């Protein structure tokens, strides 16, 4: 028996198939309409910053900052609406220096550029032994969890303090973002609010320890507080 004959033994009337097609198209058409409606109905406000990042003080305790130029291509790739790139030196400690990179995106797109992506793509390998999560005490507020990440390339070591905010998302989004299956920040499919990412880089040869880093981050947290929108959630998992 050929296949055609087999198939011919079980024809289906065009009317039946038309009904099935109508059902499928109606469901999918309805789904597309619902998608547009839900998208519109749940459109999230993407709060702007309360002020310019340039207003972050150059002096944070014993740390003295200096703006550093950013490669235009990196600035473009960061998808940041506004960014800050500074080197902060510790008074009385020649060579003790760290670099601060803060970027804000009104679309939350900047969050894709986390160290988990950027550093490995630059040939850095994550050093689990140097990676941990710490609570950083703030002189003027609640403690905040920050990821301290370690990366190695040959003999070089790069350590990074990392945390980020998403502004304007609701409680449901915040809950889901904490689940293991969530996209998190950097590999994100969607960020419904605006976002700000802070990264503090301190190379292994900068002569800085965790205590100095915690001191800097604590002061920085207080310094950026006035700029951050109220409606926010803070995360630290890259």
């Amino acid at each position: 028996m050929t296949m055609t004959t087999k198939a011919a033994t079980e024809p289906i009337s065009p009317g039946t198939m038309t009904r099935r097609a109508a059902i499928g198209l109606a469901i999918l058409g309805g789904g597309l309409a619902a998608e547009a409606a839900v998208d519109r109905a749940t459109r999230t406000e993407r709060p702007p910053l309360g002020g310019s990042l340039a207003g972050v003080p150059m002096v944070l305790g014993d740390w003295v900052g200096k703006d550093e130029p950013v490669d235009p291509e990196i600035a473009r790739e960061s998808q940041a609406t506004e960014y800050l790139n500074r080197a902060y030196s510790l008074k009385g400690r020649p060579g003790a220096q760290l670099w601060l990179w803060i970027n804000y995106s009104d679309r939350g797109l900047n969050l894709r550029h986390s160290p988990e992506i950027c550093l490995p793509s630059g040939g850095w390998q994550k050093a689990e032994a140097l990676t941990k999560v710490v609570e950083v005490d703030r002189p003027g507020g609640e403690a905040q969890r920050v990821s301290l990440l370690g990366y190695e390339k040959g003999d070089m070591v790069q350590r990074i303090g990392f945390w980020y905010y998403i502004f304007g998302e609701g409680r449901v989004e915040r809950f889901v973002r904490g689940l293991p299956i969530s996209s998190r920040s950097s590999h994100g499919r969607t960020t419904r609010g605006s976002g700000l990412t802070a990264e503090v880089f301190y190379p292994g040869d900068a002569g800085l320890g965790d205590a100095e880093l915690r001191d800097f981050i604590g002061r920085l947290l207080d310094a950026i507080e006035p700029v951050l929108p109220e409606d926010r959630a803070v995360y630290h998992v890259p």
Partner: protein
Amino acid sequence: MATSTISARDDDAPAPRELPALAGLLRDGWALPGGKVALLGASACLALLALAFRSTLWHFAHVWSTDPNYSHGFLVPLISLYFANMAAKEGPTRQVPGVALGASLLVFALLGRLATIVVPVGFASDLAFLTGLAGILSLFAGRAALYRYGFALTFLVFMVPLPIHLYTTIATPLQLLVSKVAATILNGAGLPVLCEGNHLTLPGGVRMFVAEACSGMRQLTGFLALTTAVAFLTPRPRWYRAVLIGSAIPVALTANVARVVLTGWIMSHDPRLAQGAFHTLEGLLLMGFGLALLRLECAVLNVLVDEEPEPVPAAA
């Protein structure tokens, strides 16, 4: 076995052109009453599904082309098509209406999509897309077709990237396990190694870092897809197939432990030989080692199957 060839009516007629069974089935279906409507309707539904899940499809393409852990993603739909073609060789399926099931699956898929608009869980949207494909198949071809082509559809799961957090939750302990086992073997072999997390310190202060790529996770995803495909294709009992699929984990880990041990041994002699192209070559060799392990496992299992009085036929 049904074929998709057109029977020659006389000796002078040109030789019939062979079509893949799936294509032949579609061609023959087109000629049936209602076939055109079914195929056009299914195509339109697929187009709408793709439109609804456009962000998911874009995500697939992006991850497959940028993440080495999922570079096999491009192959998975092709392998699925191969399985579908195999299933099509059995001829047309019985018409068992699956309208209610198909409609339910489509609605479920769309609800999944809608949910991921509100909450950013891309993984759910990825699986919802596959559910939508199953829904369209059931709606137009019936439940029997869904059963027949179910494996080909299910195999598409291997193209779905795991959520990164889940991935690292699995990969990180594996990475540590590989480091520990490799260090134990090297120490047992007389090469003193200090294992600190994923850092191995070899004689002479040579330091070696067991990278995430050596956790076995990358091979695990590939081996899982491979063993599943082999299990489907092989006419062996179910327990045989289950063992084969289950062995993907130990095989991938063993291959990676062997890679780390070999790299450690090479680095203790000349660290330059464990970098760049040499390291890549090691990776390829040890991938071959993993495949050899699977082959060996199949040989052992085959001996056990041959001893069975009544082997169960394939349930393809």
